[in-house]
């Protein structure tokens, strides 16, 4: 394994990890605020890729217009889903809302099959992103560098929003103590809707970059990434945005490195995420950035 090859893998890992991170943020924010695992988040991601695809393929929009439209529609989809599937169940036992989330997930997957057909489609090639660059002996698409950059920018924007704005304060309040926040006049419904909206926007941006990187679009493309990104969020500390980024990177880099160093285990690529999950749950269940919460008896 030469150093150059190692760098190549590392860059890929960081790139993949950044994509995971963007989607993981959506999971972590929703869990932080509602204590709900939004199983359907992977499908929001999948839908965004389809929207972007249709914008270019069917409506012949230039890719950057299509991207913006796709992001907007995805945000609406995410917020709509919250209203329809989660809001009515806010007072219900946890398993009911989890079943609804899983149901929403399958609903969207199969809706995609019905609307878009089960056969995979090819995501349009965006030359700005896919052009090959050379840095030293390392070769990669421009996209590979753009992804982490975009992710970092979005992260800072998000952290600013959460820590320095009133909306962000509302979000933090609701995730700490839902009831009290409501009593203190925080518009909880609006806050939750905004949270879903932001999560969906990030997933959509991640989705478009994913589509550019892995050009195959299929109805079930959100399942594995969805699961993995949730795991990334847990690894980083569920409810913690920075944690989601860290988790995503660990997962992405780890996955690539696994294949790089032990090519025989390529078939177990997906298992890596699950093993990581089990490991973190056993040794540090609150995640890397998480805090211990003890129950008052």
């Amino acid at each position: 394994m030469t150093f150059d090859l190692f760098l190549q893998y590392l860059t890929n890992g960081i790139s993949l990890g950044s994509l995971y991170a963007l989607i993981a943020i959506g999971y972590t924010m929703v869990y932080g605020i509602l204590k709900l695992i939004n199983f359907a988040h992977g499908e929001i991601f999948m839908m965004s890729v389809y929207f972007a695809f249709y914008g270019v393929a069917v409506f012949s929009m230039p890719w950057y217009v299509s991207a913006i439209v796709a992001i907007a529609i995805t945000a609406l989809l995410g917020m709509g889903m919250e209203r329809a599937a989660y809001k009515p169940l806010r007072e219900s036992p946890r398993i009911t809302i989890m079943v609804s989330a899983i149901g929403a997930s399958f609903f969207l997957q199969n809706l995609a099959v019905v609307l878009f057909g089960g056969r995979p489609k090819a995501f349009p090639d965006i030359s700005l992103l896919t052009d090959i660059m050379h840095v030293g002996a390392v070769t990669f698409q421009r996209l590979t560098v753009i992804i982490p950059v975009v992710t970092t920018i979005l992260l800072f924007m998000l952290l600013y929003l959460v820590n320095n704005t009133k909306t962000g304060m509302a979000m933090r309040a609701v995730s700490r103590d839902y009831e009290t926040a409501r009593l203190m006049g925080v518009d909880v419904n609006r806050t939750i809707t905004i949270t879903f909206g932001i999560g969906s926007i990030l997933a959509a941006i991640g989705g478009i970059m994913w589509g550019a990187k892995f050009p195959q679009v299929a109805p079930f493309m959100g399942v594995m990434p969805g699961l993995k990104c949730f795991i990334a969020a847990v690894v980083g500390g569920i409810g913690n945005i920075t944690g989601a980024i860290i988790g995503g990177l660990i997962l992405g880099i780890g996955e690539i490195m696994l294949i790089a160093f032990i090519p025989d285990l390529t078939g177990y690529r997906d298992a890596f995420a699950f093993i990581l999950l089990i490991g973190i749950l056993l040794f540090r269940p609150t995640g890397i950035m998480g805090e211990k919460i003890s129950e008052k008896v």
Partner: protein
Amino acid sequence: MKKRDTILTVLFIALLAVFLWQAGNHLDSYKIRILNLCAIYAILALSLNLINGFTGLLSLGHAGFMAVGAYTTALLTMSEATKEQNFFLVPIVEPLASITLPFLSALIIGGLLSAFVAFLIGAPTLRLRGDYLAIATLGFSEIIRIIFTNTQSITNGPLGLKSIPNNTNLWWTFGLALATFILIKALIDSSYGKALKAIREDEVAAESMGISLFKHKMIAFMIAAFFAAVGGGLLGSLIGAINPIMFRFILTFNVLLIVVMGGMGSMTGSVISAFVVTSGLEYLRVLDENINLGFIKLAGIPGLRMVVFAGLLMIVVIFFKNGLMGTREFTWNKLINFFTIKKKFRKKEVGQ
């Protein structure tokens, strides 16, 4: 009271036996297959309900246990020749190659193996809280599936197993479903079952009343895994072919759906729901296929079936939060009361 109940139950079983005998002789194979499937899902639902509904643990790993059962049963019932045929890429590992066992033994061994796997999985995960337990069990289920996909010499990897002997018939499925019901009911009604319910209601209080959380959760988990494996074994034998793709999360979700719709914490609810949902899913297949009404041809839309189904599920979950039966059971008492109360009202009217 109890004497009457026992007699009624025995009567019910006798009637069921007659029904199965007639059905076996007169119904077409499609309907028989659906009946078999219903009974299998009843077993699966009862076992999942034991963990989720009665002990209050959110386990999403059922597909993994089903896989263990399905593969074990298949490998132990297939003849040496069939195995050779299947394992053309990489030959099967030796002791498995020559063993062929009768159906029931294979099912039970599958069940025991699954219970053992449950022990290994449960040891680290059962102490996790709510959602984390859910994801951990889901993770393990996926790990099992991925392992099965990659162990070519034992499971034939992604190719799966074909030509599994079709041992499953109405007697096996309904018989085992009945046995499952009786055994799990006996567990639930016993002191141990009450301890499980206590854990569901309030873990801290249960522990303070002397109930070892770990031991009891493990009991529920292992027993549920056993029956899930039996269900898996029956399923494999019914369909005749299995592969790792079959045991993805959607399979667990199917069973979870049945349990939630029937009422978590109701055994009769699980059984009824299993029959309704399984047959419902089958009949909804028409949506996927072309409907020929003679003068009109409606083109089938693949995937519409699951869309409708998922949609219905969400409607049920949102509007009927406790499922069909909540935590209530169907008892002979209720059925009799249902008929006698009507009589009482009629009498009153006449008297006045």
